[in-house]
């Protein structure tokens, strides 16, 4: 049995550079959007908060939390059954492919990349992974616990 390693060619050791540029753009956009949402949200609270509305929004939140939990659970399963774990690790920590979470790249980017990868990742089309599947995988990636800071891990300072 012969085993060509994925990383044999030096060129494929790292992500192709065009994507890197693309990532940077997406991240900046995402950051701007996120800041916008937070500001708008704060304004909405300031203007419209009333006791009954607050109760209402808490109920909605718990409903969406359980919907989120279901999505996370489904995403976690799909991450394994679709084989994402093979290259990205069961904790999405990275392996042959890069780490994917926590703090994943925006869903819109993930959808684009997974359907049209430009490096050595194989494509998942709508036929093999639906938009809903990818949304769930995204929810799973977002739910991953923050790793420890390397400075706080003595073993990583030796």
């Amino acid at each position, binding site marked *: *049995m*012969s*085993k*060509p*390693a*994925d*990383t*044999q*060619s*030096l*060129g*494929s*050791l*790292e992500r*192709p550079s065009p994507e890197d540029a693309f990532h940077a753009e997406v991240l900046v956009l995402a950051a701007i959007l996120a800041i916008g949402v937070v500001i708008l949200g704060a304004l909405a609270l300031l203007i419209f908060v009333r006791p009954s509305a607050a109760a209402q929004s808490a109920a909605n939140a718990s409903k969406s939390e359980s919907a989120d939990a279901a999505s996370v659970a489904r995403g976690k399963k799909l991450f394994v*059954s*679709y*084989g994402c*774990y*093979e*290259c990205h*690790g*069961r*904790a*999405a*920590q*990275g*392996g*042959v492919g890069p*780490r994917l979470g926590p703090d994943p790249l925006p869903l819109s980017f993930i959808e684009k990349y997974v359907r049209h990868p*430009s*490096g*050595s990742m*194989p*494509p*998942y*089309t709508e*036929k*093999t*992974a639906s938009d809903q599947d990818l949304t769930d995988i995204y929810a799973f990636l977002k739910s991953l*616990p923050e*790793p*420890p*800071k*390397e400075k706080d*891990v003595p*073993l*990583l*300072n*030796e």
Partner: protein
Amino acid sequence: MAKSKKTSVNRRNFLKSATVGAAALAATPVAAATAVPTPQPSRARNAAAPLPPISRRVEAEAAAAAANPDPNIEPITVDHPGSDFMVDAFKAVGFEYLCSNPGNSFRSLHESFINYGANKNPEFITCCHEESAVGMAHGYFKIEGKPLLVCVHGTVGVQHASMAIYDAFCDRVPLVVVLGNFGDAQTRASFVNWTHSAQDPAELIRDFVKWDDQPATLQDFAESVMRAYRVAMTPPYMPVALVCNTDLQEFPIPDDPALRVPALTLDKPPQGDSSSVQETAKWLVAAENPVIVADRAARTPAGLALMIELAETLQAAVIDRNGRMNFPTRHPLNQTERGSSVIGDADVILGLELTDFYGIVNAYYGDVYPRTRSVTKPGVKLISINSNDLYLKSNYQDFQRYQAEDLAIAADAEATLPSLIEAVKKLLTDDRKRMYQDRGAKLAAAHQRTLAENRSLAANGWDANPISTARLSAELWNQIRAEDWSFVSNCQFVSRWPLRLWDFKKYHHYIGGEGGYGVGYGAPASVGAALANRKHGRLTVSIQNDGDLMFGPGVLWTAAHHRIPLLIVMHNNRAYHQEVMEVQRMADVHERGVTRAGIGTTLVNPPIDYGKLAQSMGMHGSAPIADPNDLAPALREAIAIVKSGEPALVNVVTQPR
């Protein structure tokens, strides 16, 4: 049965020769280039009457001897078999060990090694598969720098050995393989002997050994042993094979006073011609961003020191392709982990003993329709120093895609480095030195940033269960770094974490990989490397792939039996993981069944208990460990056992890569 007057090897003489044999055990074997003592009158090989096959002859002789104690009857014993002389020849070369799985096509040689040769230099290492025997010799060489002898049985043994010989060939590792054979059909005593015989036994492996021979006489044999060793040990190093026929082994040494073991002379490794070396120095000194890329450049510890000297003189970036321990991982000029970015900036690239220069300056991408694109700046100058250009085989394509360099020097890199360093030093000016200092400082900062990045990446999945390969590597490093350690497995399969995190700096800290990516190399090569490290008192450590171990787990027994201290840390990812990914790719590309890539590629249900497997071979084996918090105590326990001189295995259930 015709009686031979010349017969001397009879029942009475057997007792006498037993005493002589015992004396011979204590005596030092003949030195090189001295005449071998001629045996007492022996049966001439070309006696008029044809010899019956040995076993039938022995039966007939036994019957005759029982009926008639006449000392002149047909012989049933042999005083000085040809294989004794063969042992003299092998001893004159000097092999520390002989790795072998026994086979009757070299039974006489086997017996000569253990009795006439006193089982010392070489000492017989009992292997459970020919692939293990060759793999052990492969790993041993990369630590010790000396080839081992491997004896394999005719035909079926060669077939078992062939993949491992191919790995050694691709990895440019010399070993001397002896193939037993019943060449003379009259010596075949059973149908099995016929089945295991061949006209041309080395034909099967000729495409991946450097040289082979089938000597017809003992004198030929002795000369071929010397030539074999010399050819194997001239860069590019490669395995060689000698066919050893049973008649030559088992019949007495002929009464020939001229018979002698010649002296061994080794070739000096070929150095690059002086004008090309000058030109190389000029380009390197003038370059703004020179990059040195090394694959099998350092053949010895001296090669590693030369690599450091060249890089420091130039303050040049170094990328280690890790075929050998070419450059310290924590050296500030080591830019391996940011390889593509330094290649992209380079104006001169010096490739030293590269397997694949094309793959350094191009990136492969795409799956079903692979394409490549250049990753270098226009105008980059490429220089290659490579002994592979001196010897190429046709059939197997390990020579990789053709790359046109600007200057290609067919020579051994390590042997060329001293003159290159000298030429570079002569061209240095104060201006250049100042510029180099700045360059070195920038590279050192980049190196530091990359190390910090890698540490931060290693923290991802830190508490994952199964255990991440980064956590595994960090835990292991913590426990061995104060020892004189030697890491003897390929890092590729654990995302290179040890190379990314640990402080590799001595030649025996790393030995590279398979060479030919043939699975089944890992376990025996690490046992062979540990065997070489034993007398140096080093703590030998491997991260052992599960799929690889299952090709030949018998080598665990060899490690236990010969008390070879080795810490085996299982990378038990429960799959032939490369193939899981390959099949996944195909399912994804074919847009179907993306959940089925585990069929035929995984090692689950039932799970394999590697700890129990190790225990069954007589060595320590831990329970499966999937919780990272259990890892440190298990490693501590196993290391204590290894330090007491035994092998030990820790079964770590891991993430895929």
